[in-house]
């Protein structure tokens, strides 16, 4: 009986703690919107963060995109060959990359790299009182640190996703036509027959939301850092884990909505 009581108490405690954390995150999000639309607008900071996010992730995005496209081409080819539709490898890989794999894998990669970097940078500024120094100067920490990161992330993610899709398609084309000997003309004619611009839009809209979520989560956990280097490590870890979880969970909700309107 006491075991059940203990388990219920622990469950209740965890629910309360997580609701409290969600409340803090919501409050952070509201303060972000409040400060984002107030002057001054630091365009140079937005641009430098945009370069930082892009540079930090570009190589790994290209690498992952190429191999994802190549693996997808192989897998679909051998599956489709059984039912004699192997010429559809091009559009299937392209649509999958455009709608799902492009935005989701790009989101996961950016969460692991740029999201972690955001939490670590802001966290180390927090423990060394640099954020306090900003506040004392009359500069709002959220406006100065979170706003440029979130805005640049919202625009960097769709571009990185488009690059992922393009490189993935190149990989798929290479494997499909050069290794698996699908006729080049058929490959492209099927691609233009089944692939629509709406498929691209779906992925890019998702990428925009993932960019927002990953950076808001990364900056939030940066601002929550306490207790020195250990706290920075913990904050970075949480930023990556929650960033990735949110990409996967929100992918479902966005898919179920976008599939109806596009």
């Amino acid at each position, binding site marked *: 009986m006491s075991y059940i009581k203990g388990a219920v108490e622990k469950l209740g405690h965890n629910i309360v703690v997580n609701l409290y954390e969600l409340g803090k995150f919501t409050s952070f999000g509201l303060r972000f919107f409040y400060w984002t639309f107030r002057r001054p607008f630091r365009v140079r900071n937005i641009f430098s963060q945009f370069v930082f996010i892009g540079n930090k992730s570009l190589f790994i995005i290209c690498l992952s995109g190429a191999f994802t496209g190549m693996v997808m081409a192989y897998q679909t080819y051998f599956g489709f060959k059984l039912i004699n539709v192997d010429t559809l490898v091009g559009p299937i890989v392209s649509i999958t990359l455009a709608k799902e794999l492009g935005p989701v894998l790009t989101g996961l990669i950016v969460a692991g790299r740029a999201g972690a970097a955001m939490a670590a940078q802001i966290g180390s*500024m927090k423990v*060394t*009182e640099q954020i306090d120094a900003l*506040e004392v*100067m*009359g500069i709002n920490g959220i406006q100065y640190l979170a706003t440029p990161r979130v805005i640049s992330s919202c625009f960097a993610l769709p571009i990185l996703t488009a690059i992922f899709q393009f490189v993935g398609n190149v990989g798929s084309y290479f494997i499909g036509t050069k290794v698996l000997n699908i006729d080049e003309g058929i490959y492209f004619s099927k691609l233009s027959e089944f692939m629509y611009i709406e498929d691209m839009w779906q992925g890019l809209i998702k990428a925009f939301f993932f960019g927002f979520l990953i950076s808001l989560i990364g900056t939030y956990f940066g601002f929550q850092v306490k207790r020195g280097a250990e706290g920075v490590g913990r904050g970075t870890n949480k930023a990556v884990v929650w960033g990735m979880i949110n990409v996967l969970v929100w992918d479902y909700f966005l898919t179920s909505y976008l599939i109806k309107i596009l």
Partner: protein
Amino acid sequence: MQTIEYQEPIIQIKNLTKKFGEHTILDGLSFDIYKNKITTILGFSGAGKSTLLKHILGLLRPTEGSITVLGKDLNKMSEVELKEFRRNFGMLFQYAALFDSLSAYENVEFPLNEFTKLTEYEKKERVEGLLRSVGIKDESFKKLPSELSGGMRKRVGLARGLALNPFIMLYDEPTTGLDPITTKMVNDLIIDTAERNKDRGMTTLIISHDVRATLKISDFVAFLDHGKIVEYLPAEDFKNSDNPLVKEFVNL
């Protein structure tokens, strides 16, 4: 007894109380901080010094009571107004809190870039003047904070704090954990800065628990214990206070 001449209060604290849940951190504080003077708030760790400092800066709102700074009641100001108002303050943090991605020069230039419309030439003149005035040599201007010693970081932090000509200069534990030579250097720097800015009416407020260092440089000393001001006297009189807690603290 030291004679207290007429002084204009620049910070007025009335019945300031701050509670975090059940815990009372500041318990009905009432005192004034005078213009052009160096005032130190002493106290043990956890006495409420940092909480008091955050209230003076408007970073925390009191549970009860009021704080008037430069004639303005901070309770009546919005977040945006407070943000603007904080430009009247300069602050030197315990570990200087320099932006680690910016050089010494860029750290001092930072507030000028944010809040002034000075030309590049005017900014250069101002930044170099400030850095030289706190004893930073030209060859160190381009160094990152990680390449500077603790004492040099404090000097750069002070130059940054002074960049916008603040009316109130705050020092948070300026000498805590420093060796005696660096402590003397920081003390000299505080006195020198206060002297050089006296014409502008700059007021200095130090938060510390380093009693020896601060008694040498302060005009007034307040002693904070468990959220209450238990003594507030001119520095000379503070040394001879009859309060047993102050006696113990001074003789430690």
